[in-house]
């Protein structure tokens, strides 16, 4: 169970709605994420899960509602603002910078900590050199955490999907986020890889005291990993509670889990 030292929740989503060309993607959604908890968003495709993450990151602008992040209220987020405040993100279909090496991808994730000016960088003045050295050390550290050291110089576009997925999480982690949003971090992996990444996510949560919101379809892993599950369907919240409660919620079973019930039991 998450620790409740701080009374303020890490994140609150309040009455958020979003539509594309008149089609509702999210309707009046409200829930909150406590500090240092792993919150899983589940629901069928098109339920609005990725759209919600995009709102939290500022990629999409909600039609109405507000977001409260660490006590501050936002009518909308701007991507840069979100990053500066420490909201990290992993994407569904790998949004890595394919023309750059693994190491450069991870260092790119450190941009919000960069202070050296253009001129300092062009002339390699001390501050730029120092920053570059610190960034490299930090990136190598994170790569080691994900066992990616040997790929450091490889162009990321040439790596297998599972490895790319890890690079993406590594890139998000490098920037030392306070809230990490992961969109299907385990998709496309084999069972062993899934276990490995799930373990890393759990460690990030416990060791770095990181709040994590993740979207995942593998209910088995979700139930083991998450402290808190929010179920979405057609943009509405269907259920919200600890995993055990969700597993037994008749609405959820009826509307969503349905035939997959057997899998959960397994």
């Amino acid at each position: 169970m998450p620790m409740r030292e701080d009374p303020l929740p890490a994140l609150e989503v309040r009455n958020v709605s979003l539509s594309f060309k008149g089609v509702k993607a999210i309707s009046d959604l409200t829930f909150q994420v406590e500090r240092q908890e792993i919150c899983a968003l589940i629901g069928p495709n098109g339920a609005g899960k990725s759209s919600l993450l995009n709102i939290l990151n500022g990629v999409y602008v909600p039609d109405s509602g507000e977001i409260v992040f660490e006590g501050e209220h936002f009518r909308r987020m701007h991507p840069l603002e979100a990053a500066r405040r420490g909201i990290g993100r992993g994407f569904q279909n790998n949004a890595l910078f394919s023309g750059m090496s693994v190491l450069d991808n991870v260092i790119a994730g450190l941009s919000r900590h960069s202070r050296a000016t253009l001129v300092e960088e062009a002339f390699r003045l001390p501050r730029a050199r120092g920053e570059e050295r610190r960034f490299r050390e930090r990136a190598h550290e994170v790569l080691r955490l994900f066992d990616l050291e040997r790929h450091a110089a490889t162009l990321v576009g040439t790596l297998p999907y599972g490895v790319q997925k890890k690079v993406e999480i590594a890139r998000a982690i490098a920037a030392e986020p306070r809230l990490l949003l992961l969109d299907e971090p385990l998709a496309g992996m084999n069972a062993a890889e899934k276990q490995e990444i799930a373990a890393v996510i759990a460690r990030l949560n416990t060791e770095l005291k990181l709040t994590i919101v993740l979207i995942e379809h593998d209910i088995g892993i979700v139930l083991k990993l998450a402290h808190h599950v929010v179920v979405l369907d057609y943009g509405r919240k269907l259920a919200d509670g600890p995993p055990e409660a969700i597993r037994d919620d008749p609405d959820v079973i009826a509307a969503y889990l349905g035939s997959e019930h057997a899998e959960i039991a397994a």
Partner: protein
Amino acid sequence: MSEIDVRAAAEPLDSIGLKAVAGAAAAALVLAAPFLASEYWINAIIVPFLILSLAGLGLNLLTGYAGQISLGAGAFMMVGAYATFSLQLRVPDLPLPLALVVAGIVAGAVGLAFGIPSTRIKGFYLIVSTLAAQFFFEWLFLKFPWFYNGNSSATISLSRGLSFFGLDLNHPHGRYYLTLGIVTLLTLLSFNLVRSQTGRNWMAIRDMDTAAAVIGVPIVRAKLQAFAVSSFILGIAGALWAFAYLGSASVQSFGLTRSYQILFIIIIGGLGTIRGAYLGAAFVSLLPLALDWLFQYVFSGRVDAGLLQNIQKAIFGILIVWFLIKEPEGLSRLLGLRRANGGRRSLFPSSLKEN
């Protein structure tokens, strides 16, 4: 140029010694070039080649690294040339190297202004901004005599010629070393820049701008920086083109065809590589001469001259298309100069894909 090649290629440690020797030899060759080549080669081929390389480098930072397409390279070259002219004319105490830097800053500021739309507009729609710059400056510098000091021919030239803190550079060797020095310095600085956080920011925007924004890359700032730095370099290249190569220039020296030429240089040489600009410039400046020579040699007098010239133009077009089909990454890859483990990647995977 050669020193950089050494550093760029120095990753496999075992061959460093060999490369250093080769690099030193190349550097010596470059420095001694004026004494080895004829004046024609220096004046009409090597100097323009170096300047075009510099312009290609400038555009490559914007288009190849930051992924922002521009058809206005000529405009920013023009601004640099006219700013240099104005500075030399109106602030005669400012030494030429400083005038070039200030002119570069003026061009950079103009580039930044025309880069502002890039914060809202993506992909091909963005060409309107750079094309607007292209046509606007062609008009501006022709329309208002202040820019060319009322000269009846609307051309600009430095009445005192080129000098470097008292050293007279008004001879082929002087122009060559001035150009070489500036090109080398700017190449080094660019090299540092693309390997720094700014360079990574640019590439991140090029490869996937939405993701870049989300992970904290300051998109607006980085794009504007790319426009400013690119235009700074293009501005200096323009000043060199006008005064170190042509001697005098008018807006026609920096017309739309010049912009296309610079774009060809980086596409053919290799987008997103420093050396691509050099390879592309070599290709673009030598190919027409080679074709010319070949045609004169093979067909001279036997085929109608007009037909011959038009065939040459068509062949140039065919070679470009052929190149794009065969080597999307340009000469850089063809000559095996890219990192061995650098797999083929598509150019602009995201930033140019709009509806």
